[in-house]
């Protein structure tokens, strides 16, 4: 299958690594859009939606300059209540995550050193 993913994270290395590991997946092919902070993320999402290329999944980091993950989630949800936004964060059980979930994020995918595992989780989410 072909999936499109928008990843919003302020760490460049993360933005580079994700597509590399996604490419290793034999089952599906992925198109990866990136954004360096929440504001860019909202921009890119909106643009892609307007192009008819709505991302199948948004991976949203929480701590970002300019606009954090909670605000970005809210902004995206406002325009598109069906947006499939997942938090992409180190640890889920904080207040901020809760806020984000309240805002509309559907779940959390944990960042870890094991990208293979991360990719598996992403695939599960997309397949379900």
């Amino acid at each position, binding site marked *: 299958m072909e999936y499109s993913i928008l990843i919003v994270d302020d760490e460049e290395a993360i933005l580079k690594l994700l597509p590399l590991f996604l490419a290793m997946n034999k089952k599906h092919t992925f198109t990866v859009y990136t954004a360096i902070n929440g504001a860019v993320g909202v921009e890119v999402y909106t643009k892609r939606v307007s192009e008819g290329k709505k991302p199948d999944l948004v991976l949203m980091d929480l701590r970002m300059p300019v606009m954090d993950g909670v605000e970005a989630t809210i902004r995206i949800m406002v325009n598109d209540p069906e947006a499939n936004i997942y938090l992409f964060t180190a640890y889920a059980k904080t207040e901020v995550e809760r806020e984000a979930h309240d805002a509309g994020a559907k779940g959390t995918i944990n960042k870890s*050193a094991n990208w293979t595992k991360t990719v598996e989780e992403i695939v599960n989410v997309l397949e379900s």
Partner: protein
Amino acid sequence: MAKKARILIVEDEAIVAEDLEMAVTNIGYEVVGRAASAKDAVKKALETKPDLVLMDIVLRGVGNGIDASREIKEKMGVPIIFLTAYSDVELIDRAKSTEPYAYQVKPFQERQLFASIEMALYKSRAENELIESEERLRLVVENMPVMLDAFDDKGNIIVWNSECEKVTGFSSDEMICNHKGAKLLYPNEYYKDYIVSMLMRHGANFRNREWDITCKDGSVRTISWSNIAEKYPIPGWYSWAIGLDITEHKQAEAALQESEEKHRTFVETMDEGMVIADENENLTFVNHAASTIFGYTKEELLGKNLSDLTTAEEFQRVVDQTAIRKTGKSSQYESTIIRKDGAPRITVVTASPMMDDNGNYQGSFGVFRDITERKQAENALRESEEKYHLLANNTVDGIWQMNLDFEFTYVNPAIIPMLGFTQEEWVGSSLFDHCSSEDREFTLNLTKDMLKRGPESSGETFEMQLLHKNGERIDVEITAKMLFDDEGNPVGIQGATRAITERKRAEEKLKRLTLSLQEHVKELEESKRKIAEAYSLREYFLKETSHRIITPVAIIGGYTDLLLESSNLDDDQKQKLQILRAKDAEIQQLVNDSLAGKYLVEEE
């Protein structure tokens, strides 16, 4: 006749007189004087008081023997023998009227004279005796303390003796032949008619009939009359009767009857049973109360033997008591009788012996009361008191009483272990010897309070400290109540005391524990706060730090994995990369464990 008869000779012819004197003296009489005239005869008769007078009818001077005789007879009762010659026939006739005893014809013979004198003397004596006897009887009849009256055929009173006069106040003059006599005695018309008709019915044949007569002074007296004239008629009296004034007797009778009535009423209405038993224990008298107590009627009781009315063993005691009484002593004892319905009743008996004049036991007189209920009440009370004592002596709490001066009048044995005093030491001591001065204050105020509230209030409960004999202060809880008599006057205080040392200790402990618990809770809250702080810190850590560590860790791991994917790695390079990868994984694990709180415990 031992004494010589004394003769007076009245004869005017001296020689005859001389002869007479000699003859009389010869016969054996004494001549006490000689008179020749009527006047002299009377004089001498009065002087000498002879037993007999020999009187010549014809005398010298004024008057003859008949005249003299008459005069003498008027003054004295002396027998007179007339001396007469035949020629004095006319005189003899006249002489009859003077009632001479005999005539002696002159000339006389000594023998004749003797016979005449003797006869005359004898007759005279007999007459005198008769007169005396009659006089005696007359005096008796006249003066006896028995009323005597006699009636003629018309009902008039013809005899009214002095007792009649004395009793009625009416003199015989007032009553004799007084047609209104009956009215005087019976002024009430109806009563008079009643008496008259009653007398007509019984005529002259009744004894001891009582009726009332009214006396001259208006008082009424009761007379008991008897009339036996029918059987013993008295010539000249149509009827006669005797009467006894029984007024006082009747009054005494009435008084006695009243007294007897009073006594009988008393005996019959008294609550105590009264019986008389003879020497064989048979009941000869029972009063009303006795019949009630025994449950039999009087008729059923009389004649019963005491052994019928009690058990065999009780009867033995009765016999023992009778034995005491036979010695003349009274006895008092309790005895159980069996009532008619079979119920046993306890009685208390006081019995006195009845002895005859010779000191023989005739029987006993007993007074008794049924004390069954009283005994039951006494038993119940005693049982209740015993229970109370049992309770008081065995309870652990002190039970006490004190007077209004706060001195103890009673305490139960619990005082010994509680305060170390014996009962003897405690009783008589003052409450204030055993407590502090503040407690004394408190006690006095409390007492004033209880007094004010009076008999209706219930007890007061309060805590105090009392001194043990060894000086130790003992915590106690006291319940006290003021006692009042029937008139509402305070008579003392009574109550119970409980040592509450244990309880007090427990209370103290609880207080301490509560305090420490509060402290502990405070500490816990402090800890919680610290933990919360710690958690907030953790939150902060989580928030601020995890992201900053994990992101680089993820990047390192990603690039290392990618590098490891390269095909042109020699073993050494591969190994070095694998080590890098492993260390990165360690860091990741460390951070995850920290976030999971694993190290928090160790830190503490």
